[in-house]
Protein backbone atom coordinates (compact mmCIF):
# COMPACT_ATOMS: atom_id res chain seq x y z
CA UNK A 1 0.00 0.00 0.00
CA UNK A 2 2.77 2.40 0.99
CA UNK A 3 4.70 1.49 -2.15
CA UNK A 4 1.60 1.85 -4.36
CA UNK A 5 0.83 5.29 -2.91
CA UNK A 6 4.44 6.40 -3.32
CA UNK A 7 4.58 5.13 -6.91
CA UNK A 8 1.33 6.92 -7.78
CA UNK A 9 2.54 10.23 -6.34
CA UNK A 10 5.99 10.01 -7.91
CA UNK A 11 4.58 8.96 -11.27
CA UNK A 12 2.39 12.06 -11.16
CA UNK A 13 5.49 14.15 -10.57
CA UNK A 14 7.25 12.45 -13.47
CA UNK A 15 4.31 13.21 -15.74
CA UNK A 16 4.19 16.81 -14.56
CA UNK A 17 7.78 17.17 -15.62
CA UNK A 18 7.03 16.22 -19.22
CA UNK A 19 3.56 17.67 -19.71
CA UNK A 20 4.85 20.97 -21.15
CA UNK A 21 6.89 19.14 -23.79
CA UNK A 22 3.91 16.92 -24.59
CA UNK A 23 1.61 19.94 -24.97
CA UNK A 24 4.03 21.89 -27.16
CA UNK A 25 4.57 18.86 -29.37
CA UNK A 26 0.87 18.71 -30.27
CA UNK A 27 0.35 22.38 -31.06
CA UNK A 28 2.06 22.48 -34.43
CA UNK A 29 -1.50 22.88 -35.75
CA UNK A 30 -4.05 25.03 -33.91
CA UNK A 31 -6.21 23.10 -31.48
CA UNK A 32 -8.72 24.02 -28.79
CA UNK A 33 -8.37 22.82 -25.23
CA UNK A 34 -10.60 19.81 -25.24
CA UNK A 35 -9.30 18.65 -28.61
CA UNK A 36 -5.72 18.92 -27.34
CA UNK A 37 -6.51 16.92 -24.23
CA UNK A 38 -8.15 14.15 -26.25
CA UNK A 39 -5.12 14.14 -28.52
CA UNK A 40 -2.78 13.68 -25.55
CA UNK A 41 -4.98 11.02 -23.99
CA UNK A 42 -5.17 9.09 -27.27
CA UNK A 43 -1.38 9.39 -27.52
CA UNK A 44 -0.98 7.77 -24.09
CA UNK A 45 -0.45 10.90 -21.98
CA UNK A 46 -3.49 11.33 -19.75
CA UNK A 47 -3.63 14.79 -18.25
CA UNK A 48 -6.09 16.31 -15.81
CA UNK A 49 -8.35 18.97 -17.23
CA UNK A 50 -7.66 21.21 -14.25
CA UNK A 51 -3.95 21.08 -15.08
CA UNK A 52 -4.00 21.44 -18.86
CA UNK A 53 -6.18 24.49 -19.38
CA UNK A 54 -4.43 26.84 -16.95
CA UNK A 55 -1.13 25.57 -18.38
CA UNK A 56 -2.14 26.70 -21.86
CA UNK A 57 -2.79 30.22 -20.59
CA UNK A 58 0.54 30.28 -18.75
CA UNK A 59 2.42 29.17 -21.86
CA UNK A 60 0.63 31.88 -23.82
CA UNK A 61 1.55 34.47 -21.18
CA UNK A 62 5.17 33.32 -21.54
CA UNK A 63 5.01 34.00 -25.27
CA UNK A 64 5.29 30.35 -26.39
CA UNK A 65 1.73 30.03 -27.70
CA UNK A 66 -0.67 32.22 -29.60
CA UNK A 67 -4.43 31.96 -29.33
CA UNK A 68 -7.55 33.18 -31.07
CA UNK A 69 -11.25 32.75 -30.60
CA UNK A 70 -12.98 30.90 -33.43
CA UNK A 71 -16.61 30.21 -33.99
CA UNK A 72 -16.95 27.31 -36.37
CA UNK A 73 -19.88 25.05 -35.59
CA UNK A 74 -21.19 25.51 -32.08
CA UNK A 75 -20.01 27.85 -29.31
CA UNK A 76 -16.87 30.00 -29.67
CA UNK A 77 -13.68 28.17 -28.75
CA UNK A 78 -10.18 29.36 -28.04
CA UNK A 79 -7.62 27.78 -30.37
CA UNK A 80 -3.97 27.55 -29.32
CA UNK A 81 -0.95 27.14 -31.56
CA UNK A 82 2.82 27.30 -31.26
CA UNK A 83 4.28 30.77 -31.70
CA UNK A 84 7.77 31.41 -33.15
CA UNK A 85 9.32 31.30 -29.66
CA UNK A 86 7.29 28.17 -28.90
CA UNK A 87 8.83 26.35 -31.88
CA UNK A 88 12.34 27.27 -30.77
CA UNK A 89 11.61 26.17 -27.22
CA UNK A 90 10.09 22.91 -28.47
CA UNK A 91 13.21 22.12 -30.51
CA UNK A 92 15.51 22.77 -27.57
CA UNK A 93 13.37 20.91 -25.09
CA UNK A 94 13.18 17.94 -27.47
CA UNK A 95 16.99 17.87 -27.62
CA UNK A 96 17.20 18.10 -23.82
CA UNK A 97 14.65 15.34 -23.43
CA UNK A 98 16.54 12.99 -25.75
CA UNK A 99 19.74 13.68 -23.84
CA UNK A 100 18.05 13.07 -20.51
CA UNK A 101 16.49 9.79 -21.56
CA UNK A 102 19.90 8.58 -22.81
CA UNK A 103 21.48 9.47 -19.48
CA UNK A 104 18.68 7.93 -17.50
CA UNK A 105 18.79 4.73 -19.53
CA UNK A 106 22.50 4.45 -18.74
CA UNK A 107 21.91 5.08 -15.06
CA UNK A 108 19.13 2.51 -14.93
CA UNK A 109 21.27 -0.01 -16.76
CA UNK A 110 23.94 0.50 -14.14
CA UNK A 111 21.37 -0.03 -11.40
CA UNK A 112 20.06 -3.24 -12.93
CA UNK A 113 23.66 -4.53 -13.31
CA UNK A 114 24.22 -3.92 -9.59
CA UNK A 115 21.08 -6.00 -8.92
Amino acid at each position, binding site marked *: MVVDDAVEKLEQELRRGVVVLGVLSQLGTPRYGYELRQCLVDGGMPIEE*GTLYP*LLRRLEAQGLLTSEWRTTSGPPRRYYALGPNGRRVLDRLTGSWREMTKVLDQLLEGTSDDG
Partner: protein
Amino acid sequence: MTADELIESYVADVVMLLPRKQRRDVALELRALLADEVDGAAGRHENREAACREILNGFGRPTEVAARYGSPVAIIDPVDTRRFIIYAVSGAVILLYGGLLRGLIDPQRGTNLNAAVDRAWPYVFGWLGFLVLALGLVGWLRRRRPAPAWKPRPRLPEGINRAGRAVGIAFFIIGTVVLVNPMWTIRFVSGGRAMQAAQDVFTYDDDFLRLRGPVVLGFLIGSIVIQAIILVSRRYQPWIFWVETGYGLGFLAVLTWAIGAGPVFVTDTTDQSAKGIVALVILLSLLDLAVRARRFDARHAVEAYDRSST
Protein backbone atom coordinates in the same frame (compact mmCIF):
# COMPACT_ATOMS: atom_id res chain seq x y z
CA MET B 1 -29.41 21.72 -10.87
CA THR B 2 -28.90 21.07 -14.57
CA ALA B 3 -25.43 20.52 -16.01
CA ASP B 4 -25.39 24.03 -17.50
CA GLU B 5 -26.36 25.55 -14.15
CA LEU B 6 -23.62 23.58 -12.42
CA ILE B 7 -21.07 24.81 -14.96
CA GLU B 8 -22.24 28.43 -14.56
CA SER B 9 -22.00 28.19 -10.77
CA TYR B 10 -18.53 26.61 -10.92
CA VAL B 11 -17.20 29.15 -13.42
CA ALA B 12 -18.57 32.00 -11.27
CA ASP B 13 -16.78 30.63 -8.20
CA VAL B 14 -13.48 30.37 -10.10
CA VAL B 15 -13.50 33.79 -11.78
CA MET B 16 -14.46 35.56 -8.54
CA LEU B 17 -11.00 34.65 -7.28
CA LEU B 18 -9.18 35.99 -10.32
CA PRO B 19 -7.95 39.51 -11.09
CA ARG B 20 -10.63 41.64 -12.74
CA LYS B 21 -8.89 41.83 -16.14
CA GLN B 22 -8.76 38.01 -16.41
CA ARG B 23 -12.31 37.22 -15.38
CA ARG B 24 -14.26 37.65 -18.61
CA ASP B 25 -11.73 35.83 -20.73
CA VAL B 26 -11.33 32.89 -18.34
CA ALA B 27 -15.09 32.65 -17.83
CA LEU B 28 -15.68 32.39 -21.58
CA GLU B 29 -12.97 29.81 -22.09
CA LEU B 30 -13.71 27.74 -19.00
CA ARG B 31 -17.40 27.56 -19.82
CA ALA B 32 -16.66 26.27 -23.34
CA LEU B 33 -14.05 23.77 -22.07
CA LEU B 34 -16.29 22.36 -19.37
CA ALA B 35 -19.18 22.04 -21.82
CA ASP B 36 -16.94 20.08 -24.19
CA GLU B 37 -15.70 17.83 -21.36
CA VAL B 38 -19.23 17.16 -20.15
CA ASP B 39 -20.45 16.37 -23.68
CA GLY B 40 -17.50 14.00 -24.09
CA ALA B 41 -18.21 12.24 -20.79
CA ALA B 42 -22.03 12.17 -21.07
CA GLY B 43 -22.02 8.80 -22.81
CA ARG B 44 -20.38 7.15 -19.76
CA HIS B 45 -23.03 8.35 -17.29
CA GLU B 46 -26.75 8.00 -16.80
CA ASN B 47 -27.29 11.68 -17.57
CA ARG B 48 -25.47 14.90 -18.37
CA GLU B 49 -25.75 16.20 -14.82
CA ALA B 50 -23.92 13.17 -13.38
CA ALA B 51 -21.21 13.57 -16.03
CA CYS B 52 -20.93 17.24 -15.12
CA ARG B 53 -20.46 16.51 -11.42
CA GLU B 54 -17.70 14.03 -12.17
CA ILE B 55 -15.94 16.46 -14.50
CA LEU B 56 -16.15 19.30 -11.98
CA ASN B 57 -14.82 17.08 -9.19
CA GLY B 58 -11.94 16.08 -11.41
CA PHE B 59 -11.23 19.68 -12.29
CA GLY B 60 -10.64 20.53 -8.66
CA ARG B 61 -11.92 23.06 -6.17
CA PRO B 62 -12.48 26.59 -7.56
CA THR B 63 -9.72 27.92 -5.26
CA GLU B 64 -7.23 25.41 -6.67
CA VAL B 65 -8.24 26.16 -10.27
CA ALA B 66 -8.03 29.91 -9.71
CA ALA B 67 -4.54 29.45 -8.24
CA ARG B 68 -3.47 27.59 -11.40
CA TYR B 69 -4.92 30.24 -13.68
CA GLY B 70 -3.38 33.14 -11.84
CA SER B 71 0.02 33.78 -10.38
CA PRO B 72 -0.83 33.70 -6.70
CA VAL B 73 1.42 35.78 -4.51
CA ALA B 74 1.96 34.70 -0.95
CA ILE B 75 1.92 37.55 1.55
CA ILE B 76 4.34 35.59 3.70
CA ASP B 77 6.81 33.51 1.68
CA PRO B 78 6.70 29.79 2.47
CA VAL B 79 10.34 30.01 3.62
CA ASP B 80 9.28 32.50 6.32
CA THR B 81 6.31 30.48 7.56
CA ARG B 82 8.18 28.71 10.36
CA ARG B 83 9.69 32.00 11.54
CA PHE B 84 6.25 33.58 11.53
CA ILE B 85 4.81 30.79 13.65
CA ILE B 86 7.66 30.97 16.20
CA TYR B 87 7.52 34.76 16.52
CA ALA B 88 3.72 34.79 16.56
CA VAL B 89 3.38 32.18 19.31
CA SER B 90 6.27 33.56 21.41
CA GLY B 91 5.00 37.11 21.10
CA ALA B 92 1.44 36.08 21.94
CA VAL B 93 2.57 34.16 25.02
CA ILE B 94 4.66 37.09 26.27
CA LEU B 95 1.89 39.63 25.65
CA LEU B 96 -0.75 37.48 27.34
CA TYR B 97 1.59 36.85 30.27
CA GLY B 98 2.18 40.59 30.40
CA GLY B 99 -1.59 41.05 30.62
CA LEU B 100 -1.73 38.56 33.48
CA LEU B 101 1.10 40.37 35.32
CA ARG B 102 -0.69 43.67 34.84
CA GLY B 103 -3.80 42.17 36.36
CA LEU B 104 -1.80 40.81 39.28
CA ILE B 105 -0.20 44.13 40.17
CA ASP B 106 -3.38 46.15 39.63
CA PRO B 107 -4.02 48.31 42.71
CA GLN B 108 -7.70 47.31 42.69
CA ARG B 109 -7.18 43.74 43.79
CA GLY B 110 -10.74 42.77 42.98
CA THR B 111 -9.89 42.80 39.28
CA ASN B 112 -10.78 39.65 37.45
CA LEU B 113 -7.57 38.12 36.06
CA ASN B 114 -9.45 36.79 33.03
CA ALA B 115 -10.48 40.34 32.18
CA ALA B 116 -6.85 41.45 32.56
CA VAL B 117 -5.71 38.76 30.11
CA ASP B 118 -8.58 39.63 27.74
CA ARG B 119 -7.33 43.23 27.64
CA ALA B 120 -4.05 41.92 26.21
CA TRP B 121 -5.72 40.38 23.14
CA PRO B 122 -5.80 43.61 21.07
CA TYR B 123 -2.02 43.81 21.56
CA VAL B 124 -1.67 40.20 20.45
CA PHE B 125 -3.64 40.93 17.28
CA GLY B 126 -1.58 44.08 16.76
CA TRP B 127 1.58 42.01 17.10
CA LEU B 128 0.32 39.43 14.59
CA GLY B 129 -0.61 42.22 12.18
CA PHE B 130 2.83 43.76 12.56
CA LEU B 131 4.46 40.37 11.87
CA VAL B 132 2.39 39.89 8.69
CA LEU B 133 3.41 43.36 7.52
CA ALA B 134 7.08 42.93 8.41
CA LEU B 135 7.49 39.45 6.88
CA GLY B 136 5.39 40.49 3.87
CA LEU B 137 7.80 43.38 3.33
CA VAL B 138 10.80 41.08 3.73
CA GLY B 139 9.36 38.71 1.12
CA TRP B 140 8.49 41.56 -1.25
CA LEU B 141 12.03 42.96 -1.03
CA ARG B 142 13.47 39.48 -1.54
CA ARG B 143 11.46 39.07 -4.76
CA ARG B 144 12.45 42.46 -6.11
CA ARG B 145 16.14 42.58 -5.31
CA PRO B 146 18.73 39.95 -6.06
CA ALA B 147 19.69 38.15 -2.90
CA PRO B 148 23.19 39.07 -1.69
CA ALA B 149 25.77 36.29 -1.74
CA TRP B 150 25.80 34.22 1.44
CA LYS B 151 28.43 35.21 4.00
CA PRO B 152 29.43 32.87 6.80
CA ARG B 153 28.52 34.04 10.26
CA PRO B 154 31.02 33.64 13.07
CA ARG B 155 30.29 30.35 14.77
CA LEU B 156 28.74 30.68 18.23
CA PRO B 157 31.48 30.36 20.84
CA GLU B 158 31.50 27.00 22.54
CA GLY B 159 33.29 28.29 25.61
CA ILE B 160 31.88 30.37 28.42
CA ASN B 161 32.12 34.14 28.34
CA ARG B 162 33.95 34.33 31.66
CA ALA B 163 34.44 38.10 31.66
CA GLY B 164 30.76 38.68 30.93
CA ARG B 165 29.67 36.17 33.54
CA ALA B 166 32.02 37.67 36.15
CA VAL B 167 30.61 41.15 35.55
CA GLY B 168 27.13 39.69 35.71
CA ILE B 169 27.84 38.04 39.05
CA ALA B 170 29.21 41.30 40.43
CA PHE B 171 26.06 43.17 39.40
CA PHE B 172 23.92 40.36 40.80
CA ILE B 173 25.64 40.59 44.18
CA ILE B 174 25.39 44.39 44.30
CA GLY B 175 21.72 44.20 43.27
CA THR B 176 20.98 41.62 45.94
CA VAL B 177 22.62 43.74 48.64
CA VAL B 178 20.59 46.80 47.54
CA LEU B 179 17.35 44.81 47.52
CA VAL B 180 18.00 43.23 50.91
CA ASN B 181 18.48 46.60 52.59
CA PRO B 182 17.51 49.55 50.40
CA MET B 183 17.48 51.95 53.34
CA TRP B 184 21.06 51.09 54.21
CA THR B 185 22.00 51.67 50.58
CA ILE B 186 20.31 55.09 50.56
CA ARG B 187 22.06 56.08 53.79
CA PHE B 188 25.38 54.81 52.40
CA VAL B 189 24.98 56.67 49.11
CA SER B 190 23.74 59.91 50.73
CA GLY B 191 26.26 59.77 53.54
CA GLY B 192 23.46 59.62 56.09
CA ARG B 193 21.94 62.88 54.82
CA ALA B 194 18.83 61.35 53.25
CA MET B 195 15.60 62.46 54.95
CA GLN B 196 13.62 59.90 56.89
CA ALA B 197 10.76 60.25 54.39
CA ALA B 198 13.06 59.19 51.59
CA GLN B 199 14.09 56.16 53.60
CA ASP B 200 10.48 55.28 54.49
CA VAL B 201 9.62 55.16 50.79
CA PHE B 202 11.68 51.99 50.51
CA THR B 203 10.30 50.18 53.53
CA TYR B 204 9.20 46.63 52.79
CA ASP B 205 5.74 45.39 53.67
CA ASP B 206 5.77 43.04 56.70
CA ASP B 207 3.75 40.39 54.92
CA PHE B 208 6.29 40.38 52.07
CA LEU B 209 9.17 40.02 54.53
CA ARG B 210 7.50 37.05 56.26
CA LEU B 211 7.60 34.61 53.29
CA ARG B 212 7.89 36.06 49.78
CA GLY B 213 10.98 38.11 50.52
CA PRO B 214 13.05 35.21 51.90
CA VAL B 215 12.01 32.97 49.00
CA VAL B 216 13.04 35.60 46.43
CA LEU B 217 16.29 36.15 48.30
CA GLY B 218 16.92 32.39 48.26
CA PHE B 219 16.45 32.29 44.51
CA LEU B 220 18.72 35.33 44.05
CA ILE B 221 21.46 33.63 46.02
CA GLY B 222 20.85 30.42 44.08
CA SER B 223 21.28 32.34 40.81
CA ILE B 224 24.60 33.72 41.98
CA VAL B 225 25.76 30.22 42.95
CA ILE B 226 24.75 28.80 39.55
CA GLN B 227 26.55 31.60 37.69
CA ALA B 228 29.65 30.98 39.81
CA ILE B 229 29.56 27.25 38.97
CA ILE B 230 29.20 28.07 35.27
CA LEU B 231 32.09 30.52 35.53
CA VAL B 232 34.48 27.79 36.67
CA SER B 233 33.17 25.11 34.27
CA ARG B 234 35.37 24.18 31.31
CA ARG B 235 32.71 24.48 28.65
CA TYR B 236 29.01 25.19 28.28
CA GLN B 237 27.60 21.69 28.46
CA PRO B 238 23.99 20.67 27.84
CA TRP B 239 23.33 20.10 31.56
CA ILE B 240 24.30 23.72 32.25
CA PHE B 241 21.70 24.91 29.76
CA TRP B 242 18.96 22.76 31.27
CA VAL B 243 19.82 23.80 34.85
CA GLU B 244 20.00 27.49 33.88
CA THR B 245 16.74 27.33 31.95
CA GLY B 246 14.81 25.31 34.53
CA TYR B 247 16.04 27.49 37.37
CA GLY B 248 15.29 30.61 35.38
CA LEU B 249 11.71 29.56 34.71
CA GLY B 250 11.26 28.68 38.37
CA PHE B 251 12.64 32.05 39.42
CA LEU B 252 10.27 33.86 37.05
CA ALA B 253 7.33 31.93 38.54
CA VAL B 254 8.48 32.93 42.05
CA LEU B 255 8.78 36.58 41.00
CA THR B 256 5.28 36.43 39.53
CA TRP B 257 3.98 35.10 42.83
CA ALA B 258 5.99 37.65 44.81
CA ILE B 259 4.49 40.65 43.01
CA GLY B 260 1.03 39.16 42.66
CA ALA B 261 0.34 37.93 46.18
CA GLY B 262 0.29 41.32 47.87
CA PRO B 263 2.21 44.54 48.41
CA VAL B 264 5.99 44.50 48.37
CA PHE B 265 6.61 48.01 49.68
CA VAL B 266 4.55 49.91 52.20
CA THR B 267 4.24 53.04 50.03
CA ASP B 268 1.81 52.59 47.13
CA THR B 269 3.86 54.54 44.59
CA THR B 270 7.04 52.62 45.34
CA ASP B 271 5.11 49.37 45.36
CA GLN B 272 3.52 49.97 41.94
CA SER B 273 6.78 51.17 40.40
CA ALA B 274 8.77 48.25 41.76
CA LYS B 275 6.16 45.75 40.58
CA GLY B 276 6.13 47.34 37.15
CA ILE B 277 9.91 47.05 36.90
CA VAL B 278 9.85 43.43 38.06
CA ALA B 279 7.08 42.62 35.54
CA LEU B 280 9.21 44.10 32.76
CA VAL B 281 12.21 42.08 33.96
CA ILE B 282 10.06 38.92 33.92
CA LEU B 283 8.91 39.52 30.34
CA LEU B 284 12.39 40.39 29.07
CA SER B 285 13.80 37.33 30.84
CA LEU B 286 11.17 35.13 29.16
CA LEU B 287 12.21 36.54 25.80
CA ASP B 288 15.88 36.00 26.65
CA LEU B 289 15.21 32.38 27.66
CA ALA B 290 13.36 31.76 24.37
CA VAL B 291 16.22 33.22 22.30
CA ARG B 292 18.86 31.24 24.21
CA ALA B 293 16.85 28.04 23.90
CA ARG B 294 16.68 28.45 20.14
CA ARG B 295 20.41 29.17 19.90
CA PHE B 296 21.24 26.20 22.11
CA ASP B 297 19.05 23.94 20.00
CA ALA B 298 20.79 25.03 16.79
CA ARG B 299 24.26 24.75 18.31
CA HIS B 300 23.45 21.33 19.77
CA ALA B 301 22.35 20.06 16.34
CA VAL B 302 25.61 21.26 14.75
CA GLU B 303 27.70 19.79 17.59
CA ALA B 304 25.85 16.47 17.30
CA TYR B 305 26.83 16.41 13.62
CA ASP B 306 30.46 17.29 14.50
CA ARG B 307 30.57 14.49 17.08
CA SER B 308 29.06 11.93 14.72
CA SER B 309 31.48 12.76 11.91
CA THR B 310 34.70 12.47 14.00
